[in-house]
């Protein structure tokens, strides 16, 4: 068995170190080593986006990033976007807009939406649906999710 590797990274703004096997994905590390279970495993192969985190500001499927690859990088997860007990406006809009049912896809959608609104503060409905195509939802039919992102765009102005 290969030795565990020591990784130093910045996780939700905090300098963080962990040990992991080379084969462990960032998703596994977040959930099973660091204990941040907000990122979800939906497919483990890059299709569903439930594991979406921001890596140096970019949305990525954490199931397709190895834990060792975040050495020296900035990782932001769903646990890192609220300000203390104040929800991020995107979280607030998802709640108020009832843009979730089972909630498994929700952290991934919120992280991808956050990245979207930072890149494009005023996206059209078409742009929202296109950019969030990497996030799948089996419950809602997407409509309330899209509306929540539109509301969040307004709230973030």
């Amino acid at each position, binding site marked *: 068995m290969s030795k565990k590797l020591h990784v130093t990274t910045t996780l939700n703004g905090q300098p963080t170190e962990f040990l992991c096997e080379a084969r462990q994905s960032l998703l596994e590390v977040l959930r099973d080593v660091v204990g941040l279970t907000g990122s979800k495993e939906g497919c483990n*192969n890059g299709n569903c986006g439930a594991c979406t985190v921001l890596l140096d500001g970019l949305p990525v499927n954490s199931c397709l990033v*190895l834990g060792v690859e975040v050495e020296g990088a900035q990782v932001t997860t769903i646990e890192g976007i609220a300000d203390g007990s104040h929800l991020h406006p995107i979280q607030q809009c998802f709640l108020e807009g009832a843009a979730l049912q089972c909630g498994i896809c929700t952290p991934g959608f919120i992280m991808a939406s956050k990245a979207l609104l930072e890149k494009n503060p005023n996206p059209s409905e078409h742009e929202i649906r296109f950019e969030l195509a990497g996030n799948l939802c089996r419950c809602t039919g997407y409509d309330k999710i899209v509306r929540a992102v539109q509301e969040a765009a307004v709230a973030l102005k």
Partner: protein
Amino acid sequence: MKDFEYAAATTLDEAVSLLAAAGTRAKVLAGGTDILVQLREHLRDADLVVDIKKIPDLMAMRYDANQGLSLGASVPCYRIYEDDIISRAYPALTDSARIIGGWQIQSRASIGGNLCNASPAADSIPSLIALDAQCRVVGPQGTRKIPVAEFCTAPGKNALQQGEILVALEIPPPSARSGSRYERFIPRNEMDIAVVGVAVSVRLNEAGDTIESARIALAAVAPTPVFAREASDFLSGKPATPETFEQAGIEARKVAKPISDMRGPADYRVHLVGVLVKRVLAEAVQRAK
């Protein structure tokens, strides 16, 4: 996933040495969006994974209007379409980069990786072929160039020999009055794998009414991506009209040898080649004007 060792090479020499020494036991890691899934599903195997993203040449993207584009093999897709100059110079490549997977995939996946993975349905390969791209490959024996059109040898297999790495894609500078486009047919709007993919690059005459030259390439209709040579040659000197585009579609269908699988029957795919070539050619011509 089976246990493996991880090494991040910081120079090309180091990567080549590691890969040559480990032989078939080692796999290269760029974006990881294909290889990690394959390792997890035991479709490919590795005792050593060599991360090449710390090698400067692999991550460099250099464009010059006279030299063309040198695209490091590990450059993620998003860097292509977020670059105004490059995305305008190579629209077909940008079309491809924009629709490989979704945003999360494009943050990591590379054109070089898409090529090396050698899926017959790969979205970037027809665009690379249409744009007449070459592969710069480095290995224990030195450097060599391989035309992209010859790089894929069978489904999932490429021309790289033991210890060789694809370092960069080299694409000639766009000529005046040229345009290109990639489009695919998929069941949804995003995220699927191409049922048929078509890339076209054209150059028009000064008046903009005649095609001086064209390159048509197809995805998902043969064991490897296909350069539709006869259909491309047919277009030289033809008027840039819908009748010409229709005829080119009919020519291109002759090189389509698809299989029937869960994404569609073979005869439907051949039909789609005709439809898409006609449409993509018209759009490439528009872009050339």
